[in-house]
């Protein structure tokens, strides 16, 4: 436990001084993307890692968050902070509806239902031209500034945005920590391990599953809002199936059902596609092979896999 605490402190320190060491805008950009991906991964991890429900439609919540936040800014001139609240409210509400409908089903049915919902929303975003401008997308979503007792910080600056995301990620990790170590978390895990047994000891599985989806959706919506205000342009691509798949891979690669897993996964899965650029046009094909390898050989995450390897090596020598 003490070792863990030191490790956490080191990570915190490392991420705090990171912008001071590497000032290159490209590295800052990657770090911000990692932050956004971490939030999404935490959101999936709550659902997949702790209750065992696989959603391949999480792009729906991400996209709704991005659009909600962008639209309240563009139409009502609500700044990003309000946009974030709106994004979380809309995504959370959508999550509630989806969960109400989808948790009549489990397994493959549930997965396909979530995909269907994301696809419908993508088509709505593409075709409700009056509201979303369709395939043209929404532009000029501005980043606000933050006033702290006379001191104004321009969040358009990459470093400032990085610290904002860092704060959000740590907030969500802490939230996740508190949640999974509460009676809620124990209920979630019992549902993951054996739903029938959980129900038989009096856990209202349906209710807990709805709660977890609402929280998960709200976090994904927040990630969407932060994304929209960072890139300042969104189009229906935010609902892409690929995003949903990627986030699930992130969580599995990092280690599902662990606190650090989503972050490790986010770092890996933001950097791997970048490293694969050396393959040129074949990049995505190689990436697909990486995905298959991770799914088959590291179903419990890369850390678990490395630990296993180390244990094996010790036994051999």
């Amino acid at each position, binding site marked *: 436990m003490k070792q863990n605490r030191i490790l956490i402190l080191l990570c915190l320190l490392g991420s705090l001084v990171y912008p001071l060491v590497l000032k290159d805008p490209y590295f800052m950009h990657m770090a911000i993307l990692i932050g956004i991906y971490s939030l999404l991964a935490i959101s999936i991890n709550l659902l997949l890692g702790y209750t065992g429900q696989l959603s391949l439609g999480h792009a729906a919540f991400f996209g709704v968050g991005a659009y909600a936040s962008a639209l309240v800014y563009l139409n009502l001139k609500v700044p990003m902070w309000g946009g974030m609240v709106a994004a979380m409210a809309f995504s959370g509400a959508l999550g509630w509806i989806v969960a109400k409908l989808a948790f009549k089903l489990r397994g493959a049915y549930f997965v396909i*239902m979530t*995909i*269907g919902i994301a696809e419908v929303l993508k088509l709505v975003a593409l075709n409700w031209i009056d509201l979303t401008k369709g395939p043209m997308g929404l532009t000029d979503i501005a980043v606000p500034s933050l006033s702290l007792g006379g001191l104004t910080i321009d969040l358009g600056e990459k470093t400032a945005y990085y610290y904002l995301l860092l704060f959000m990620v740590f907030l969500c990790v802490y939230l996740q920590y508190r949640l999974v170590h509460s009676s809620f978390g124990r209920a979630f895990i019992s549902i993951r391990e054996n739903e029938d047994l959980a129900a038989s000891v009096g856990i209202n599985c349906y209710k807990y599953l709805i709660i977890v989806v609402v929280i998960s959706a709200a976090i994904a919506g927040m990630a969407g809002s932060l994304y929209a205000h960072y890139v300042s342009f969104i189009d229906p691509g935010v609902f892409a199936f690929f995003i949903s*798949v990627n986030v699930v891979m992130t969580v599995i690669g990092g280690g599902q059902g662990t606190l650090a897993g989503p972050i490790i996964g986010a770092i890996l899965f933001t950097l791997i596609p970048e490293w694969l650029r050396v393959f040129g046009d*074949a990049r995505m094909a190689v990436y697909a092979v990486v995905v*298959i390898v991770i799914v*088959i050989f590291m179903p419990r995450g890369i850390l678990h896999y490395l630990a296993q390897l180390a244990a094996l090596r010790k036994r051999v020598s």
Partner: protein
Amino acid sequence: MTVFLQYIINGLIIGGAYALIGIGLTLVLGIMNVVNFAHGEMYMLGAYFLFTFFTRMGINFYLAMLLAITAVMLVGFVYERSILKPLRRRSIETVMLSMIGFSLLIQNVAMLIWTPVPEAIKSPFPLTAYTLAGLYFLPQRIMVICVAFLLVILTHLLLKKTKTGKAMRATFQDLEAASLMGIRIDRIYSFTFVLGAGLAAAAGTLLGPIFTVHPYIGNLANAKAFVIVIIGGMGSFPGAITAGLLLGVFESLGAGYISSAFQDAIGFVLLILILVYRPTGLLGKVGQTR
């Protein structure tokens, strides 16, 4: 009224090809319990192989179709043997995600081979339509519905009349009992997966000349296949046919009377409604939703 009938007929023609995709997916799902996310990619490959053999190499259309379907079956065979077989005892999620990886791989390899530029397979049939009672029938489309019908009948006969078919049905009903009776499950699985791939490829060769061909057509085909399988009931053969035709008709009517932009959403809306009100599908068994 004529317009309405024309929409129905157009829908049934496309629906015939949808039924083929649906049957393939429902067999793989029902017999192997594999959620095949790469099914749409088999459809895409079928269309692309036809493009290569027919448009590029100038082989006879029907022969090119046959070659394309065989080539896709080969791809399916290799994947089943190399990846799916070792994963047999793993959780459904692992298999599902490996299928997604496979679908990504095929899509991107297709993009490397054929470039992302959409290609058109020029129809070898005359473009003058036959008219009957004010309704138009393009020769190309008549061919589509005839071949689709033929393949459905053939698959049906295969399942009902042959020993392999009997073994497949036995595996569907009870895996362990079937293997105790001396049915070689591995062979049945390979055969089922290859058959499913072949049916999807056949649909690809049928619809390829009607629509354009690009590396991402598999995504939509896949989504529609899932819609069909769920509407028809997972693992139900007649269900997949009914749902395929229904989806074709609904899309055609929706595009005609509501908006062609939302044509592709119709399937998903049907899917969500079915999942909410009758999750076992129109023709599925009750109590199978987990």
